[in-house]
């Protein structure tokens, strides 16, 4: 089995698997797996592993937990793929598995939370943010990046899991309100309202950077 395929996530927009073409392509792969060609599942892993890891990591704030839960998500999806009928998009289905696993994990963990951050890779968007901040506060770049990472993660962790999830799916993963509503099994109105509240909270937590 080869898992070296390239992830198709567009990090400029953050969207993965949401277009009708991609839905069809995913469904074709799912059908292959259902017919017994289990190696085809690797293509789905390659395509979604980064976005699923990212969602779980941003919800838990711990890279080790995110790693375990991402693997659990794919194992659960692999076991249950025979029951997937294609009524929803594959990404909706697997994101829902990921979120359910993560929420169950958070409930079990209770208040015992450990923070273990992921490395910040240099990307166009991160560089742009850092440049703006460096000019603004005249702090050494490395220090600024570390501080910003800590503040962002702390701020996200202050939100309730439901609000955190909506912000992560919309602002970081770039999903549309309708897609988030489908994944979280809520209405679009609820998604909008949660997003509005969560962003208000974040504005307050991060006002040092935004003023």
């Amino acid at each position, binding site marked *: 089995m080869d898992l070296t395929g390239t992830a198709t996530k567009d990090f400029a927009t953050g969207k993965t698997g949401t277009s009708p073409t991609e839905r069809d392509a995913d469904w074709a792969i799912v059908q292959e797996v259902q017919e017994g060609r289990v190696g085809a599942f690797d293509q789905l892993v390659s395509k979604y592993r980064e976005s699923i890891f990212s969602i779980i990591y941003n919800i838990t704030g711990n890279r080790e937990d995110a790693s375990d839960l991402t693997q659990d998500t794919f194992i659960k999806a692999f076991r249950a793929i025979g029951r997937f009928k294609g009524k929803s998009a594959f990404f909706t289905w697997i994101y829902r598995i990921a979120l359910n696993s993560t929420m169950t994990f958070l409930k079990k963990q209770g208040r015992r939370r450990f923070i273990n951050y992921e490395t910040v890779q240099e990307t166009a968007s991160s560089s742009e943010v850092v440049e703006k901040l460096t000019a603004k506060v005249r702090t050494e770049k490395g220090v600024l990046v570390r501080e910003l990472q800590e503040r962002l993660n702390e701020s996200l962790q202050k939100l309730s899991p439901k609000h955190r999830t909506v912000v992560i799916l919309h602002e970081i993963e770039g999903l549309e309100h309708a897609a988030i509503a489908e994944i979280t099994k809520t209405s679009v109105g609820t998604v909008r309202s949660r997003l509005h509240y969560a962003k208000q909270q974040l504005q307050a937590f*991060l006002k040092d950077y935004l003023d």
Partner: protein
Amino acid sequence: MLNHKKDPTKKDLQLEELLRFKRAERPDEAYWNRFDRELHQRMLQTLVKKDPFHRQVLRAFAGKRFPVGLLTAATAAVALVAIGPFSQPQPSIYMEGSLAASTPQSAVSAPLGSADADAMNPTNAANAANVVEGVEFVDYTIESIGVGEETFQQDFGMDRMVAAELSQADYSFQEAAPRSGRTMLASLTF
């Protein structure tokens, strides 16, 4: 904490831009290679069918030497757990006459095949009808006396039942005169 010296020429950051910074927090390629290897192992384990329980136990014991004492203790523990529930005292009926003075334990330990033992065994209840006749139920948990489909029950909160189905000729009960010609007697014992 940041020491802000705001430059008015620079445009303010938006929350959305700041949150997009989170996209840069992601693992490197080496991490994904390791992830894929581990995931493959777990997927293969999912595909491998598990053996039945007895085979797993046999495999666990195969080729291993255990001290005789340990094995004996383990066997004894299993036997105790298995036999335990049956070794509890189970007195069911307190007899009048020759058995009136006997304790519940003595009633349970009566020789198999004796009239007393038969009376307590539901399968032999019909044969033990003559013995049951004249029995006084001095203590019981639930008594259920039914005629046809009508049944009267009294629950005293105990949990073991010995039931006997008797013909009217074998057993009669003043307060529940049978109409259908058959009387069912059931008594729960402790």
